């Protein structure tokens, strides 16, 4: 493929977390703590209708009855929710008429992240929504998409402008009762992206959201809802960064996807939240619930993720294959270094007939990190001829890191076919030496071998993201061998 190789090799330079800057802009931040008043405050700040406030308060009640899950193969000090501010927004002095009026500091942040809006507009044809701390600050290309009937905006705007869609779909894929962090998110979510692709429309560009945690002492609770109506197609990209801070910051997002009959959603994530320093201090707790519903027949949802950041990751992008002949895919590369811990995988719930799912998971563990794949393949009793193929590979870079695989398979229909393959290997000294003998240095050798190992997944990413992901893999693993 054209994007392999050179660019990546030229970029293996910076040793530290590249996105660890903060932006000095005035922020409107709620007092720390979690209670009904804070939820009312968030709801009123966002000028929400009563039904949504009620929905949040109900979620809060559910949340209060739940306890934090402990089954994941991770160890961390549970975040003190009373010490977190649940709402922080960059203060804007007035309503902006165009992106040119945006706070110059905020513009600089975007440029540092490599998402200069002009650049995006001119070159790549990617529509970007940018969420800093809790609030969505810019959505490019809105008009152009509008002509096709595509809605792509912040979820706050969608609540105001398309309340019927929000009311119909919010919480239908990830109910408030789903889990501790999903309930928390439902109570306090502040912003996120919303996308609706109308019937028969093929979205002509990649839609992209960039999430950024900037303020200290805050959490980010974004909520994304994406609906692909019948016979539509959309490819959606999500990127995340955060400043370097000594404290742990909580990120608890919920992403819901709905694919109607003959619709296809491709959802790609490059997650690079601050992982903490090399001694394990600081970093983001990334506790995320992502789920897609293949509602209609012949629908397809494909998750691709490259996870390199966060101190602790707890994330299982899943598919409910309800429509007959629907297809679910999960392609993942998860890299952990130093003291990072990741427990990630997927759930493929086969309900409809002739449903198919594919799971390709590539874990890479270095330093003293722990990297676990956890996946469930469930074949329902009516899911005749369901098929699943799972491949879970682990690559160990050091003797002090760990790789674990927890596959769960439940089959309730005798016509189902489920295949699972797993391998664990250690990066080969011989492979590295071979590269060195051909003139490549150690870092180039490691990045080349690791990228080769993860190629099946990286190839699933859209081009723009694939290059970024390759660089990230290389940077995340610097100094990890030898």
């Amino acid at each position: 493929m054209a994007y392999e190789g050179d660019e990546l090799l030229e970029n293996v330079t910076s040793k530290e977390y590249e996105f660890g800057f903060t932006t000095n802009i005035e922020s409107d931040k709620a007092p720390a703590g979690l209670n009904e008043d804070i939820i009312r405050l968030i709801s009123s700040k966002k000028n929400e209708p009563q039904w949504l406030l009620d929905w949040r308060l109900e979620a809060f009640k559910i949340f209060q009855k739940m306890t934090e899950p402990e089954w994941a193969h991770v160890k961390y000090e549970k975040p003190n929710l009373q010490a977190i501010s649940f709402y922080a927004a960059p203060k804007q002095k007035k309503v902006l008429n165009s992106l040119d009026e945006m706070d110059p500091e905020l513009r600089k942040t975007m440029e540092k992240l490599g998402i200069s809006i002009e650049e995006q507009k001119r070159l790549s044809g990617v529509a970007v929504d940018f969420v800093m701390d809790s609030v969505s600050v810019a959505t490019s290309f809105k008009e152009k998409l509008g002509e096709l009937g595509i809605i792509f905006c912040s979820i706050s705007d969608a609540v105001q402008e398309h309340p019927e869609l929000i009311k119909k779909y919010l919480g239908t894929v990830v109910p408030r009762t789903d889990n501790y962090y999903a309930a928390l998110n439902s109570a306090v979510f502040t912003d996120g992206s919303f996308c609706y692709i109308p019937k028969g429309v093929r979205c002509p560009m990649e839609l992209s959201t960039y999430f950024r945690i900037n303020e200290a002492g805050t959490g980010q609770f974004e909520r994304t809802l994406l609906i692909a109506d019948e016979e539509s197609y959309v490819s959606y990209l999500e990127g995340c960064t955060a400043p370097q801070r000594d404290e742990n910051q909580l990120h608890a997002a919920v992403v819901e996807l709905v694919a109607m009959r003959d619709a296809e959603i491709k959802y790609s994530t490059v997650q690079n939240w601050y992982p903490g320093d090399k001694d394990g201090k600081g970093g983001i707790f990334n506790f995320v619930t992502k789920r897609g519903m293949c509602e209609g027949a012949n629908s397809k949802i494909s998750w691709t993720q490259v996870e390199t950041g966060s101190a602790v990751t707890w994330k299982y992008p899943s598919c409910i294959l309800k429509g007959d002949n629907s297809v679910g895919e999960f392609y993942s590369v998860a890299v952990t270094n130093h003291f990072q811990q990741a427990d990630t995988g997927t759930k493929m719930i086969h309900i409809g007939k002739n449903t198919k799912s594919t799971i390709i998971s590539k874990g890479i563990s270095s330093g003293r990190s722990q990297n676990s794949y956890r996946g469930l393949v469930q074949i329902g009793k009516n899911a005749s001829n369901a098929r699943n193929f799972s491949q879970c590979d682990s690559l160990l870079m050091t003797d002090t890191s760990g790789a674990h695989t927890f596959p769960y398979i439940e089959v309730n229909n005798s016509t189902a076919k489920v295949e699972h393959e797993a391998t664990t290997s250690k990066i080969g000294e011989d492979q590295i030496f071979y590269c060195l003998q051909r003139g490549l240095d150690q870092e180039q050798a490691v990045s080349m071998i690791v990228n080769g190992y993860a190629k099946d997944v990286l190839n699933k990413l859209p081009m723009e993201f694939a290059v970024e992901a390759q660089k990230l893999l290389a940077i995340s693993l610097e100094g990890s061998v030898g």
Partner: protein
Amino acid sequence: MLKIENLHARIEEKEILKGLSLTIGEGEVHAIMGPNGSGKSTLASVLAGREDYEVTEGTVTFNSKDLLDMAAEERAREGLFLAFQYPVEIPGVSNMNFLKAAVGEIRKHRGLEALTAKEFLQLVKEKSQLVELDGQLANRAVNEGFSGGEKKRNEIFQMAMLNPSMCVLDETDSGLDIDALRIVSEGVNAMRDGKRSFVIITHYQRLLDHIVPDFVHVLYKGKIVKSGTKELALELEEKGYDWLKEMEDAK
């Protein structure tokens, strides 16, 4: 070009090279033969800079530089190439990208401009014909799923691409059938230009029928015990190593 003096090297606690000396001039082809376990492959690994081996004594000068002071990748960039006895597979890394990166590094080190994509492909085409690999590489990963013969041909192809001044071939003939042996040998011969030097490590005379050496050395117990011209190889083929072993052990 390459001067090895009193080289001692060990792996873990075991000394394998015990005072090896050898001088290789510009454009010369030296064959190194010897019984199993005499230290032939160790010599190749030590020259290439493999870290498992510790050099305890001796010097190696390469183009008047201290070779032992250089990291493995520097040695490669300075023009030392090792054709591996067992080339490793690197799954998912395409041959083309691998070579492009390697050629890029080596050219950069030598102060040459980077090749354009077109020039690179032209070079690939030209050099792959040398070992009859034309058109078989583009879409495959490095050595992945290659037959034994293909792997060895790929080594020689890489050697031609990287244009080294000193080539070390570690049992390149092992596992080759007659046709592959001919192809590989022709590839090597095509690269003999009176300037480039070769060290050819082999067990058997048959490779030396194709690649005719200027000098033949016998390595035994970590030292060169006999040197001669190509006739020495024929003598060894006929008489085996035992007479040499006995002579040496009697000392």
